[in-house]
């Protein structure tokens, strides 16, 4: 009997490290969400919360669903994903179908991701089939805990880290990695990257051009008290940076990764003595016909535009255009605290 070693998904969830500048290391993932998906499922199996015969249900627009679908295909799990019509393109849906995932797509006329309707559908499914497993990536502490592996890989590559830059969607990757790194580097500066009209750091909700970061609901895995500064990056600077990463570094990552890289590069140039790490969550293939297509880009209103070389400093949380990049000193405050402070400030200014 032969027993060969080889863990495909462990390898696939491992980022490739790229030095984008002498003091800037980027962890470029093929599919970052495999890390929390695998950790959450493995923990649930170990705890007895999940058994192979149960169905997995999750509401997701993207890569967490893809990660669950890959693992489910390989392990023979049944999987149902609830998504919205504005979030899933035909090719991505075909890939998920091909992996054997059952797809439920809600009609999303407003184009805002339809989070509430999706949760309602998920609730209906769980009521009809009570014995199913809901990984809850937004609120499951396992999502953040999984990223100790990323912290481990960063430390193994560069040793001491002074500043961590990453996008926030569920909060898992940035807050998880930050929590584990700060336990060994108490001076660590944590920079969150969000996009305009995401509510995560206090902007009012609205239609977002840049997907894969931001959120219209507040996930439990976002720990505002870990965050030193917030950058809101619009679609346009992210798209330009994605093209630049490909052209100047040969790195083919999606626009979410690019938004993080843009902020990471700026942080590296303004803190030349610091060692900075940036998280890049997924590859560019999904955007071949959009961000990496000149005709698609050319059809955007106001394109081409020269991307800003630095963020605009703001002292109150406000919405920007898709061409804007803004920076706000968060100072590890809670979201409530920021809202309170702004109300007080407005009172003083009037």
């Amino acid at each position: 009997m032969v027993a060969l070693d080889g863990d495909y998904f462990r390898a696939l969830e491992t980022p490739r490290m790229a030095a984008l500048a002498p003091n800037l290391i980027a962890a470029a993932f093929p599919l970052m969400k495999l890390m929390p998906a695998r950790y959450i499922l493995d923990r649930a199996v170990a705890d007895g919360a999940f058994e192979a015969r149960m169905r997995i249900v999750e509401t997701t627009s993207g890569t967490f669903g893809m990660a669950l679908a890959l693992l489910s295909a390989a392990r023979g799990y049944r999987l149902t994903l609830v998504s919205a019509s504005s979030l899933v393109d035909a090719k991505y849906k075909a890939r998920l179908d091909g992996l054997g995932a059952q797809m439920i797509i809600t009609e999303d006329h407003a184009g805002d991701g339809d989070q509430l309707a999706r949760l309602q559908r998920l609730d209906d499914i769980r009521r009809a089939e009570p014995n199913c497993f809901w990984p809850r990536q937004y609120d499951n502490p396992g999502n953040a805990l999984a990223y100790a592996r990323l912290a481990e890989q960063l430390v193994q590559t560069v040793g001491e880290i002074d500043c961590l830059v990453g996008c926030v969607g569920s909060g898992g990757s940035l807050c998880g990695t930050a929590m584990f790194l700060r336990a060994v580097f108490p001076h660590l500066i944590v920079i969150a990257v969000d996009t305009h009209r995401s509510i995560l750091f206090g902007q009012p909700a609205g239609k977002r051009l840049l997907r894969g970061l931001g959120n219209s609901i507040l996930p439990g895995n976002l720990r505002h008290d870990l965050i030193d500064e917030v950058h809101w990056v619009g679609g346009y600077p992210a798209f330009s940076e994605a093209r630049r990463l490909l052209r100047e570094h040969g790195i083919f990552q999606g626009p979410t990764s690019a938004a993080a890289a843009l902020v990471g590069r700026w942080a590296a140039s303004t803190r030349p003595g610091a060692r900075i790490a940036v998280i890049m969550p997924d590859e560019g293939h999904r955007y071949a016909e959009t961000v990496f297509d000149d005709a698609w880009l050319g059809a955007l209103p106001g394109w081409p535009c020269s991307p800003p070389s630095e963020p605009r400093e703001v002292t109150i949380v406000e919405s920007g255009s898709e061409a804007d990049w803004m920076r706000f000193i968060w100072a590890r405050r809670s979201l409530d605290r920021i809202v309170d402070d702004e109300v007080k400030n407005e009172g003083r200014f009037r």
Partner: protein
Amino acid sequence: MAGISETAPNGKPLRRIGVGAASGHHGELLQGVFEDWNGQLHRGLVTLPLTRLVSKATFTCAATPDLTTRPGDKVKAGSAARKTLSHLGVAEGGFLHIKSNIPIGHGYGSSTADVVAAIHAVAAAHAVRLQPSRVSQLAVAAERASDALAFDGRAVLFAQREGAVLEDFGGSLPPLLLVGFKSIGGRPIDTLHLPPARYDSTEIQQFRVLRALIAYAVRYQDPNCLGRAATASALLSQRHLPKQHLERVIEIAEGSGACGVQVAHSGSLLGILFDHTGKNLRQRAESVAASVQRCGFCDVEFHQINDDGAPW
């Protein structure tokens, strides 16, 4: 670490004698649970060796199966000698003598050092050189949980209850100066009667990062990363075997530009780690020695680690 003399100068066979030695340590840089190559979790530790503390064993073969150990209370060393004889397929016993300058019960690894020295001595008396992994397995068999002393100067992540190496860091620790001291009223601790620590998921995940830091510290000979890992491990250990005034010791270390703080995870020792190549080393070491004494700690000592005889 081991030697044998089989013949006297006049060519007549002597009674076969083997010697062995093993160093003590200053507790652990890191202790927790860690994955093996297969993803299984094991209890493991990284030892901070002290070459100045040594246990020396001499084993003299005898023609009868009897095994005598001196001093008589070195029961585990005697048991290790017996297990080594049995591993070698030798029915005859002998006389085992242990001479050690390692204090007992504070986390200096006196027991493991005796055990490892005894194993080396018995093997040497039978003209055998055992692999470190074999020595470790015999040591664990003799005393249930062991330290990584069989690996000499090599930094390894060691599964202390299985005697197996979880990770060989591929070199030795960077050069350090250790200012070691004991807790106020630090009494000897019977390590084997401590209940094994139970770690939660966050701690288990945090240990990954500490392990990676030590791997980096060994690969790049970076004492700062080593110190960071040790300090974090000391803080995690507080929930299991708390050290009084640890926070204050960390403050003292930070104030003097030390790399970090280290504790014996199942003993009463604490230490402040300095980069051996740092500036004004003696002055800073003496300053922290005075500070910890004022804080009430006792038995302050300076230990050189992997210094290669460099002056300081």
